[in-house]
């Protein structure tokens, strides 16, 4: 070894260390000592780079590993970085000084050259291109919705002429799941909403001594809109999500393919009973929710506002006309269609992975809730115009 060699120990701690020496004018020898393991603190590549750039130009690199006590992948990546760096600078690397196992692994790692175009790169696409692809995608997803609507209509027509194929048992099970089993949560939420309305209204109405009008406020709000909207949102989260998850999992599991290859239309077999049951149950749940909401309002009226229950009852009957109930029922029917359509559509669109099922569920709930709010606004405006 050249006696005039520069030795520059770097790194600290109990981990791997690195030192440099020049065995001749243009040969750099890198000596590794200590344990080069992932868990240890290790010197960085910049030490080597600095050494390569200082002093006379280096033509070849050799390694000395007599002091190396342990190594693992951390050591390999460090060596690979050095090799890559040297190839770029056209420096020869001699691997003779490396342990046998390290050399074999390095050979393995460099044996297959990187496949061109295999690495996915972040591509910079111009704004207009992104705008275009997004528009096309949105348009296509619209087409999918229309296609689904068409298929649903066909399935319903087949049902009307009695040629739709599904198991009646499935219909009853779904009716039970989205009707009866939803009663507790619908009761709770509706009663609380009625209660909140009564409270908020009472504060204002008390100033005029018109507490009794709490009854008509709660009654009209619940029957006309809030009962339907609250059940719609509950069912979107409860049943719409479950439709999407059930159908999506079946899609991921090839169960839908299995239906198709047996000549059973998934639209009739899976979508039809689900849509039917929700469309039947939603108006009923809406009515039930109206009732629970009024009950909640009455609780506040009687206990907090000291109203006579009979007065409250009479005022409610007086305020709530059949028109309000019809409008509420119409809302519920529309929401039933929306929630079941969104749930089944997202389920059928699902791709074949666990993450896709999650996305389908999320998307079903979001689609339902957005559509419910939009539909409510449209119906409200139309009712206003028609003076209903």
């Amino acid at each position, binding site marked *: 070894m050249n006696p005039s060699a520069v030795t520059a120990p770097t790194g600290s701690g109990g981990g791997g260390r690195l030192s440099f020496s020049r065995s001749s004018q243009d040969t750099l020898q890198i000596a590794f000592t200590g344990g080069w393991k992932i868990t240890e603190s290790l010197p960085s590549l910049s030490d080597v780079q600095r050494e390569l750039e200082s002093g006379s130009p280096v033509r070849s690199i050799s390694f000395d590993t007599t002091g190396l006590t342990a190594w693992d992948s951390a050591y390999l990546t460090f060596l690979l970085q050095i090799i890559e760096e040297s190839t770029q600078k056209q420096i020869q690397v001699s691997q003779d000084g490396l342990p046998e196992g390290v050399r074999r692994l390095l050979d393995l790692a460099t044996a297959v050259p990187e496949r061109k175009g295999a690495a996915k790169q972040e591509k910079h696409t111009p704004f207009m291109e992104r705008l275009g692809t997004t528009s096309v995608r949105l348009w296509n997803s619209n087409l999918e919705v229309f296609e689904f609507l068409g298929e649903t209509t066909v399935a319903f027509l087949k049902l009307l002429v009695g040629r739709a*194929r599904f198991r009646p048992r499935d219909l009853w099970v779904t009716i039970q799941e989205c009707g009866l089993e939803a009663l507790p949560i619908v009761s709770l939420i509706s009663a609380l909403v009625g209660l909140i309305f009564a409270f908020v209204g009472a504060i204002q109405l008390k100033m005029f001594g018109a507490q009794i009008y709490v009854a008509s406020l709660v009654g009209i709000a619940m029957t006309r809109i809030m009962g339907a909207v609250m059940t719609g949102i509950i069912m979107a989260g409860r049943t719409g999500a479950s439709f999407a998850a059930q159908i999506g999992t079946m899609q991921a*599991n*090839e169960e839908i*393919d299995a239906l198709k290859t047996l*000549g059973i239309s998934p639209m009739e077999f899976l979508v039809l009973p689900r849509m039917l049951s929700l469309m039947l149950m939603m108006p009923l749940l809406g009515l039930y929710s109206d009732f629970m909401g009024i009950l909640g309002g009455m609780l506040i009226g009687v206990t907090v506002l000291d109203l006579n229950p009979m007065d409250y009852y009479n005022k409610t009957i007086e305020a709530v006309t059949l028109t309000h109930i019809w409008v509420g029922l119409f809302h519920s029917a529309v929401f039933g269609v929306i929630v079941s359509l969104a749930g089944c559509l997202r389920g059928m669109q699902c791709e074949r992975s666990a993450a896709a099922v999650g996305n389908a569920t999320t998307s079903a709930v979001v689609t339902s809730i957005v559509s419910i709010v939009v539909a409510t606004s449209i119906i409200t405006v139309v009712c206003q115009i028609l003076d209903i």
Partner: protein
Amino acid sequence: MQEKKPHIVVRDLTMAYGDFVLQRDLTFTINHGDIFIIMGGSGCGKSTLLKHLIGLKRPAKGEVLYGDVNFWTAPPEQQEAIIKGIGVLYQSGALWSSMTLAENIALPLEQYTELSSMQIRELVSLKLALVGLKGFEEYYPSEISGGMKKRAGLARAMALDPEILFFDEPSAGLDPISARLLDDLILQLRDSLGATIVIVTHELPSIFAIGNNSVFIDADRKTMIASGDPKVLLKESQDPTVVNFLTRMEAGRRGHVDADKDNRRGTP
């Protein structure tokens, strides 16, 4: 059994997902009573080809004929008749998870026949007994093992006594003995029911044990590169990709292919 009568004819088939062409110019014939193997490396489109054969995916170009009926131009009634003559065993069984095994097998029978529920129950027991699952009628798919799911899937595929049975990687995920038993079962079914059998697989032991006709499709060249009896292909094929596949790149299995040795490296 009718020998050498075409059952499925595939002509100039091109398969594509949108603009991405998977395979082109596939032309082959599956005869009555064949055990036909669709083979090729991973990702070359074997399962997609299967989807074209069972009417789940529409060809981008070309046609699939059953007997002499083109599936995609046939009227709906004829399509339904073709579909009824097909049984499919999916890779994971694809049993309907919300139904018991008995209900799974009974569903196609309920849909297509006028049998009484008593008769259906007896048929279901028979089908389950044929695949060695007697007594498992009331189990749900999640309660049985992977191998049992496959066998139950097979029982469902056989529910309507189909003329053609399709298998998507039947032995994937099975231990060697279960895989062997499934192969034996497939052979027995062919011999006793006279059904045509189409199998997507890359399990060499199965390919040689039961296949008597095949098509080899290649991902790199995007088309079929060999067809015929796999045992004959092993002996006579000159194509390095096919030979590598059939010999697991072990030259010792065939003497005279050493000349291709250099070509062989790097091909999947």
